């Protein structure tokens, strides 16, 4: 795992992801300072931190293996240690560590700064709101990043992985619920059910009452992530390395 963390520290993509997220953080802070939270503290945190982090997580997840395919360094990595399953585990652990670190730090940083900015409009952001938003964001980030990693493994390409991951998360996964019966097992609604419950929302964006998240939603999300990652890992193990 330490080799993977060293790669993350050395390459520009993770750094640019972090910079993009920090820019959104600062813009959100400036917006809160200028206009307040509009009474939706959690929404502001989601928009300024959660949403950018989600996109960055997809890019980061794809990059974890994409960088090896893009620079043809997979053969070098596997001649240092040929255990391919172990490589997947190392990358997953490094990915989870970074996501946990960045998500936690950004939300910890948001607590005093956003609260201070909101106080200009006699508003406040509580620890509870930040914690809920942070946990929901962490779950989304982990799911998106692992899906991104899985697609880069499946297509064995950085650009291909990125395209398919984005298309899957933002298009295909939003269309699956429209398919009768199959739609009940779509990842997006299940993940939304979980994150909305973590956030403590009672109604969704359209005013519909949100169901209490059950084990089924967690199983559906886990099944998608594990299933796609398993296909990707199988492909990595079975394929010739260029």
């Amino acid at each position, binding site marked *: 795992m*330490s*080799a993977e963390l*060293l*790669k993350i520290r*050395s*390459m*520009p993509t993770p750094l640019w992801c972090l910079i993009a997220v920090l820019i959104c953080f600062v813009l959100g802070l400036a917006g809160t300072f200028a206009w307040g939270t509009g009474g939706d503290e959690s929404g502001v945190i989601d928009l300024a931190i959660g949403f950018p982090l989600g996109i960055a997580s997809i890019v980061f997840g794809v990059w974890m293996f994409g*960088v090896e395919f893009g*620079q*043809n*360094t*997979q*053969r*070098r*990595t*596997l*001649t*240092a*240690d*040929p*255990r391919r399953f172990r490589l997947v585990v190392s990358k997953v652990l490094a990915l989870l560590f970074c996501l946990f670190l960045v998500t936690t730090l950004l939300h910890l940083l948001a607590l005093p700064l956003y609260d201070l900015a909101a106080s200009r409009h006699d508003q406040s952001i509580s620890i509870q709101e930040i914690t809920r938003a942070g946990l929901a964001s962490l779950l989304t980030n982990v799911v998106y990043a692992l899906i991104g990693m899985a697609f880069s493994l499946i297509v064995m390409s950085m650009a291909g992985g990125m395209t398919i991951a984005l298309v899957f998360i933002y298009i295909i996964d939003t269309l699956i619920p429209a398919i009768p019966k199959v739609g009940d097992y779509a990842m997006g609604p299940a993940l939304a059910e979980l994150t909305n419950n973590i956030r403590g929302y009672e109604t969704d964006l359209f005013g519909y009452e949100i169901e209490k998240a059950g084990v089924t939603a967690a199983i559906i999300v886990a099944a998608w992530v594990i299933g796609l990652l398993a296909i990707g890992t199988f492909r990595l193990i*079975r394929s*010739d*390395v260029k």
Partner: protein
Amino acid sequence: MMSTIASTSTLASMEGVTRRFGKTLALNGLSLEVVEGSVCGLLGPNGSGKTTAIRSLLGLSRINAGSASLFEMPLHSRGFASAVRQTGALIEGPALYGRATARRNMQIQARARGLRSAGPEIDRLLELVGLSARADSKTRGFSMGMKQRLGLALALIGSPRLVILDEPTNGLDPAGIVEMRELIKRLPESGVTVLVSSHLLAEVELMCDRATIIDRGEVVADGTMAEILSEAGAHGGYRIRVAAAEVQRAAATLSDIGLQVEAVESRELPADAPIRELAVTGPIEDGSQINVLLAGAGIYVSELRRDDPDLESVFLSLTGGPDGSGGMRDVG
């Protein structure tokens, strides 16, 4: 720390390995052996299967039939990972993280090999390959030669017992080629066995103790250089130069004692030169015999020299000549 595998005289071997890519047969029952302490050459024309063989040996490419092992650990066996970790490799050019510095590339490789504090070794290896001054430069700005040298340093990290180098002099200038060749030749002194693939004959001849020549995925010759030359039926001979007017008589004199004589063209001699060159082969113990014989017949040679067979001529005869007809075989 790396686990150490029991010392063995054969560090890498392939036995009857076959690899197909669709209808193309890349390796056709290939067998080879790398003996400890040697610099072993894997020689073949472009597309003959050298890289596929190396990839298969390292477990990067699957094989359809046969067996391969490193440090006597069969491919994909429990101990194979440990064997690979005792092997350094540079395959098809250096695979570098272009946005990272040379030193960081080395650090990443060291960590991937499970080495925690490899700082002094990294400095030593960068010094060895002449990249100390550029250690902290990003490798995307490196020339091909610098990348190749860094690739060699990457292969040597962790003190591997076996180093596998695929076309290590690709992209190097003449001085770089000599430097790389000398580096590789010196590796056995520090206990490193080398398997080096190349399509450059002079390189293999100068660097290697023994060689395996492959063509279309099959071994066509294997052994020490002397064994290969001898097995290929390449016998040495002599070249003599005599006056143009004496050519017929010289040929007849030498043929009388069972030698084969052939007039050859020499780039150094224009067509209208008063001297001609003859190639003489056959059972001759010493060149002076030719001189004595011809002088006895009143023919005086202006030049007499040995005409040793070289790997190039053997290689060309074994791999189908200089027309590039070698390569992979379609089995469809």
